[in-house]
């Protein structure tokens, strides 16, 4: 073996970084989500888990561009296409529902820079 003093330290560091997730100790599990109000979601829960952002995108498009504000789901139920008024009326605990799951998966929607989380605005009224 030649030049070990140049080869070994960087190579071991490479291996250590690469395998860091394996030896860096226990990881957090998927956090518990707050229970939503109501019986069922807009669409089936499995579908929502994967596709809710695209549903929201679709809603936004429809409302802002086409003035179409009513969504009819697979089961024929009608919903207003609204982030705050629809989603957050049942999922009324955004911090412990949307945010918890988003933190776990490192998603940071910028929607609430403009849209309102009713719970937060109540708090600011009290203060």
């Amino acid at each position, binding site marked *: *073996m030649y030049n070990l003093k140049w*080869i070994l330290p960087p190579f071991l560091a490479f291996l250590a970084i690469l395998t860091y997730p394996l030896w860096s100790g226990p990881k957090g599990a998927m956090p518990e989500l707050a229970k939503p109000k109501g019986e069922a979601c807009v669409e089936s829960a499995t579908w929502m*888990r*994967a596709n809710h952002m695209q549903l929201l*995108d679709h809603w936004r498009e429809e409302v802002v561009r086409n003035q179409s504000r009513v969504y009819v789901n697979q089961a024929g139920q009608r919903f207003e296409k609204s982030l705050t008024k629809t989603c957050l009326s049942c999922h009324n605990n955004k911090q412990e529902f949307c945010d918890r799951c988003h933190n776990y998966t*490192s998603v*940071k929607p910028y929607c609430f820079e403009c849209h309102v989380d009713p719970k937060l605005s109540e708090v600011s009224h009290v203060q």
Partner: protein
Amino acid sequence: MKLLAPLVAVFALAALALGGAAAGQYYLLGVVIPYVAFALFLFGFSYKIYGWAKTPVPFNIPTTCGQQKALPWIKGNELEAPSSTLGVLGRMALEVLVFRSLFRNTKANLEPGPDLSYESDKSLWLFGLLFHWSFLLIFLRHYRFFLEPVPFFVGFLEKFDGLLQITLPTFYLTDALILLGISALFARRVISPKMRYISLAADYFPLMLIGAIALSGMGMRYLHKVDIALVKTHIQGLITFHPEAHVIGATFYVHLLLVSALAAYFPFSKLMHMGGVFFSPTRNLANDSRVNRHINPWNPQIKIRTYADYEADFKDKMKSAGIPLDAD
């Protein structure tokens, strides 16, 4: 054939994953194959490094593109012809981070006449750089699945990668750039007859495989969505050695199988240039052959006898014969 075989191989892998998912082989696809692939990667990579570490370098053979350090009044070029370890580190860093040697790439043109002309060709450098950096950033972004809590740099990268804030989930710039880069690197091999002539299946396969990985990943993000939270739970299970099979969309298993294939194939392919670049004597040797003697480690041990030794042995005889001694 050189093009068809790798194409078929990539499609076969994708079809295997689709078939496996349809047949409910979630444990095989989601647990067994990723573990085996990662083990092969670690073992193969280490083995290659070991092989290179025990190979001696017989000569001092840096390639230099600048003035060597010489007399005090001649300006030496420390990065192009490094004379010190620091200079070598600088040159290596430039090579690895910005592909300096590709920047000097030239292209030969045969024009009617016939005239042979050479011109600078920076396309390989540009698309290579786009491809590699996009790949690195995409790889780093995947740490949102590997670590909990998610490390700080992931959010930072996501923010800048998603700067355009178009589509939901937010469109990432690196996704477009990696496709652009890899398509250009592929086109480069097939368009020019000269390049096509020297390209082998082993050149096309990594390009196609990585292209397919990028496409399947994007498909999973933008088109055929999967439950990302469940994906993370699955991967957390793998890395804490409590693996469980999960029913996640087939796109995920296609992506995972292709990535596993890449990881397993990596150490045994040209892709090992990732480790190999650090072992290139033309890059990692200082251009100091006039200052330091490079000893070939495989030279046999030759017993040498200097004149001083000789003289010491025959001192008395030489003296009596009246031969002058150096020692006096």
